[in-house]
């Protein structure tokens, strides 16, 4: 089963991004993610024990400190960062971290689209003309 959403979002990606998702309801890079392993430690995230490394990280809501920028940067430098971040509302702390990491951060996704994604789904993000398209493939 798959669904594709093409949206008018003011975010550009340079190349198609493809990967498996890790979906969390709430996340702070400081405190909720192990800096040495890239593993989510917070129970409230809804995905404790999940590794964000090379995953498309789907976040419903951000929380936490401005130091999160540094943690995301450090994870990326160690090769433990996510492949891309998808979210509803952008958090400038995470936007700055993703920019320094040079990973795509896509925000402004409708909440129903975000909520339809679950951990383990396969996602392909690509530009089709001016539109950003997200193909979600459910893996059973």
């Amino acid at each position: 089963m798959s669904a594709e959403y093409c949206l008018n979002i003011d975010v550009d990606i340079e190349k198609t991004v493809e990967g498996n998702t890790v979906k969390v309801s709430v996340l702070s890079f400081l405190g909720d993610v192990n800096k040495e392993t890239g593993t989510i430690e917070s129970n409230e995230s809804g995905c404790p024990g999940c590794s964000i490394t090379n995953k498309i990280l789907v976040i419903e809501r951000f929380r936490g400190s401005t130091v999160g920028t540094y943690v995301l940067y450090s994870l990326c430098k160690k090769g433990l960062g996510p492949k891309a971040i998808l979210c509803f509302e952008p958090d400038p702390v995470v936007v700055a971290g993703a920019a320094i990491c040079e990973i795509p951060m896509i925000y402004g996704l409708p909440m129903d689209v975000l909520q339809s994604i679950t951990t383990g789904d396969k996602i392909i993000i690509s530009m089709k003309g001016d539109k950003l398209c997200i193909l979600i493939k459910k893996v059973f």
Partner: protein
Amino acid sequence: MYLTKWEEKALQGEFGEPLRMAMNVLVKVCKALKGEKLIEITHAHVSGISYFNIGDEGLELLQDLAKKKTRVLVYTTANPSSIALIDEFASVYGVDVVVKQRKIVELLIAIGIDNKSFTCVPYKLRVPGYGEHLAWAESSAVIYANSIAGAKTNREGGITALMAAIAGRTCFCGMHIDENRCPTELIEVSFPVNSIALASALGLFIGKVVRGIPYIKAVFRLHEDIRDIAIRSMLSSIASTSSTALALVEGITPGYANINLKGLEKISVDIDDVKDFIGGRCSDAMFLGCPHIDIKEAEELLADIVGQLKGYGIKKVYIAIPSLDLHKLSELNRVIDGIDIVYLPGVCPVVSNLKLAKVYSLSTIHGKAYHYLPKLAGASSCLLNIA
């Protein structure tokens, strides 16, 4: 989003990797904030200097920036570092922490930050002009710049302020736009504000109730020596209990007389609203200088309150001061009427791990220290009404 030709070139890397990276971060953050363009700044002030805050990850980023020969494009100052750099505490934290804290300071100086800064009162080094655009990341300095100097700055994050310093511009949004600087609530204070502690308590209360930009009507009945410290304490307290970047203070904020107050929601504050913030002594050590006070202010303040300090049984006073005053330190009294005075140049106890230093509690007169000491430094705090 509109970019000038220079900004486009910088973003494409024509002026080198550090500028490309800074522009990339600024443009992406600005788009997220729905900004339409960037605005040139005259002064950036970066936060996130304490090793206890930014850790090895922050140090790593600064090392990478220095390796790329990054330089700031505009005058830039930095917040205080942790107390690990003070002799009295260095042995407590150990060589590893001290070396890393020193490295952070050295790296910032290497990329062009004023080596006399490391203070939360950058307006003491360079007073911002009315209407100037800044990119400051220290909430107490931001609210001072907007409210007292009439300059324009948002509450920047540590990283975005650093990127703004490198690119010489920031996002044109929020406080940079005149329409966003109008009051939303009228705060009428029914009692005279006659001490720094009371100004702090008032600020803490206002921060808790305000939803936007307060216009504050209050009578400040304070000795000239401590008036500015009290105003700074009130503003920094507001910025501690709220995300407010601007408070319009009657009689003080430039252009206050032309502000339209019609239709504003009124909030009356009486002494009962604020007295709960002020309590009894919780420690025989007192912390002064949050925000930093300079040596002249410290000496005047100590002369005013030494009797009250003795009355409360205070045995030691820590005073955080800007590091630009370093050369004057040797001339200062270290004991006044039996009370030990410890000056802390260029550092801040609030961003330090005080538990490790076996400082479990501090008395203070400043609302910001009172609010953040338990949250950030692991020490309990109390607000004494002694100045």
